[in-house]
């Protein structure tokens, strides 16, 4: 029987868009299934809508958020305009143990979370790919930096990454567009850190998938600020802005929104997936599509859910296990004297980055792995007057006065893979389409808690080196797991089919024509924002799959 398509890609987010681009460019007739609605930039992007045109001026519809998006509203970029890019928590339920909350941020629309992502892109190094082997935990990555480096190049050249080369082994340089500028205070902190810590602790401008010059037909950033509401100039990378248009231009893309994948269709006689079964989100009709190869790019937990609901590719028992995220809310801030006659103009959609420095050259006594700092410096504006004393003319003048420069460091910590951090199918809970939901049980370990404590200490050291005053360490405990939206690990790569779900090509050990290329594939979490690695792994897996198809091996 002839298949409907050569390839099916489940999901149109950051990895689904890449799979669509690579597979169609390599000649495959490709169906992309997206659970959510279509996105029309001219209509759906609202980044330039001024606050006075919003009913709640940006404070959001408190009642609707609390009742329909009680989880999603915790996301860092959730606001009155962007809330439409997150799911409805009532229609898409999941459960956790009562005392172990997990924030599962989800996006169902063409483009997925690539519309609302943080856009920070960092390469991993062998410090990361060798970590599990070195520490003797979980499973060894089946790949090393040399395997993925050309694919980092490939992805960076297409998406456009602004950044500065620093020559650090733990954070390899890439193919960068001109960096965005540090502001006066950040430049000062960079120099003081250099004087105090040399090459050990380096402050650099964030490496960000936002254009600083025209690139592949997309315009440079105009520094308006709220990227997470869309970008009509296509200046930041998303599926909608970049990969899907290229895939469409090949003439080989079929994009089907409102298509919720219920399960894979598995032929046990041939040991192949022959396609996928979907529910139309609007009509609720069920139907099947067939293809020669299937790519799951639905996000780490959603892809695991599809595998579990399909009962395939899980001979290792590892599907849904080893959930990782990055731990936040450790760090510090402080004031810097000076530059009172200077201010920032424009909204730079990017901050600073301090690459990992713990357990790089030396060994920390309290924990393995490490963390990086993001953050930046700025001056408070009218928001400082919200709680200031006084009324009248003098009080009003405060609105236009700027506060002192304040520098902040916020840690992003690595989380270890642990089998007991696990998503399973809920025995009774289903979503609005009757598909079994997940029960997610995930918590930090002592290693993450030790990292959190050290973030506060080290951030304060950086501020002291910079000569900051009024240094305040974070008083928050570790963030809620899942809350960084870097969930990963639920169908990990490995070298052994008994202990991993995927081989080194993102191909399931059990079913040769089934690939998983989103965050599920990760065998460890690093501390760098992971999307660049997901994209590179996806492109690499697509080329491998097409090669195997041509050889008649799938």
């Amino acid at each position, binding site marked *: 029987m002839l298949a409907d398509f050569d390839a099916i890609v489940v999901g149109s987010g950051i990895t689904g868009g890449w799979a669509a681009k690579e597979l169609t460019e390599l000649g495959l007739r490709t169906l992309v299934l997206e659970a959510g609605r279509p996105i029309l930039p001219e209509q759906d992007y609202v980044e330039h809508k*001024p*606050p*006075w045109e919003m*009913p*709640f*001026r*940006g*404070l*959001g*519809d408190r*009642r609707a958020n*609390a*009742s329909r998006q009680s989880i999603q509203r915790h996301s*860092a*970029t959730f606001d009155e305009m962007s809330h439409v890019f997150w799911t409805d928590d009532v229609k898409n339920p999941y459960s956790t143990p009562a005392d172990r909350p997990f924030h599962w941020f989800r996006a169902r629309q063409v483009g997925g979370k690539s519309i609302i992502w*943080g856009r920070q892109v960092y390469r991993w190094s062998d410090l990361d790919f060798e970590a599990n082997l070195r520490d003797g935990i979980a499973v060894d990555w089946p790949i090393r930096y040399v395997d993925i480096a050309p694919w980092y190049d490939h992805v960076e050249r297409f998406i456009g990454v602004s950044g500065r080369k620093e020559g650090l082994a733990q954070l390899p340089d890439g193919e960068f567009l001109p960096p*965005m*500028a*540090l*502001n*006066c205070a*950040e*430049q000062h902190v960079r120099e003081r850190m250099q004087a105090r810590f040399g090459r050990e602790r380096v402050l650099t401008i964030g490496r960000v998938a936002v254009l600083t010059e025209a690139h592949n037909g997309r315009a440079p950033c*105009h*520094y*308006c*600020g709220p990227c997470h509401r869309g970008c009509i100039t296509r200046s930041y990378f998303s599926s909608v802005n970049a990969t899907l248009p290229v895939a469409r231009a090949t003439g080989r893309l079929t994009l089907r929104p409102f298509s919720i994948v219920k399960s894979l269709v598995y032929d046990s006689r041939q040991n192949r997936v022959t396609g996928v079964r979907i529910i139309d989100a609007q009509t609720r009709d069920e139907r099947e599509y067939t293809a020669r190869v299937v790519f799951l790019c639905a996000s780490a937990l959603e892809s695991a859910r599809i595998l579990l609901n399909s009962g395939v590719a899980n001979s290792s028992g590892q599907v849904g296990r080893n959930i990782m995220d990055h731990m*936040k*809310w450790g760090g510090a*801030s402080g004031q810097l004297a000076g530059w009172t*006659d*200077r*201010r*920032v*103009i*424009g*909204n*730079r*959609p990017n*901050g600073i980055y301090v690459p990992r420095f713990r357990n790089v050259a030396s060994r920390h006594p309290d924990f393995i792995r490490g963390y990086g700092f*993001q953050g*930046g410096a*700025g001056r408070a*504006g*009218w*928001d400082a007057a*919200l*709680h200031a*004393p*006084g*009324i009248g*003319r003098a*009080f*009003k003048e405060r*609105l*236009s006065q*700027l506060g002192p420069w304040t520098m*902040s460091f*916020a840690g*992003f910590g690595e989380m270890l893979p642990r089998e007991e951090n696990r998503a399973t199918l809920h025995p009774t809970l289903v979503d609005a389409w009757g598909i079994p939901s997940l029960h997610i049980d995930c918590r930090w370990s002592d290693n993450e808690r030790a990292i959190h404590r050290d973030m506060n200490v080290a951030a304060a050291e950086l501020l002291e080196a910079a000569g900051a005053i009024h240094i305040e360490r974070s008083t928050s405990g570790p963030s809620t797991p899942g809350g960084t939206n870097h969930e990963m690990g639920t169908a990990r790569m490995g070298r052994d089919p008994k202990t991993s779900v995927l081989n080194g090509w993102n191909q399931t050990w059990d079913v040769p024509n089934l690939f998983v290329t989103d965050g599920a594939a990760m065998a460890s979490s690093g501390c760098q924002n992971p999307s660049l690695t997901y994209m590179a792994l996806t492109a690499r897996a697509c080329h491998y799959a097409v090669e195997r198809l041509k050889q008649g091996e799938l």
Partner: protein
Amino acid sequence: MDRRELIKWLVATAGLQGLASLAPAELLALGRDVHRRAASRNALRALSPHAEQTVAIAAERILPATDTPGATDAGVSAFIEKMLADWHTPAERDRFLAGVRDLDVRCRARAARDFVDCTEPDQVAVLTALDAAHEEWFARLKYLTVYGYCTSEPGMRALGLYPLPGRYDGCAPLDAR
């Protein structure tokens, strides 16, 4: 992490209270209340005409028109009416409205008139006392006044926040545009 997220993280507690901690019972009450008021045909749904006038004058005393627009020019009272009707819980709104009524009590004690009919110096004196006493409802009025002004078109233009500059300069002189 961009500055927006940083600010959200660092000053998460500076916002209006309760957004993250609305109890289910309060939510239900809020839901019922919004439906009831949406059904009424009055343009004003939370404030009486007298209370609206009181709030508008109080907001103007907090942010008066000077060489730049004031709270009245920025339409602050309409924003406060909207927030009271559709954002705050009934309990929060009732505390706020009781505070607005208390302005009349204080002005009558001082000058035998309602707040709206008092002289400007008397109005300022009453509001200054409330500000110094950190009255909760007054802090809310002030917050909403400042927030409403700084997110209005006249307010944002006056503060140089609109239109957007379309460029980035991380170390510009204060008077640069």
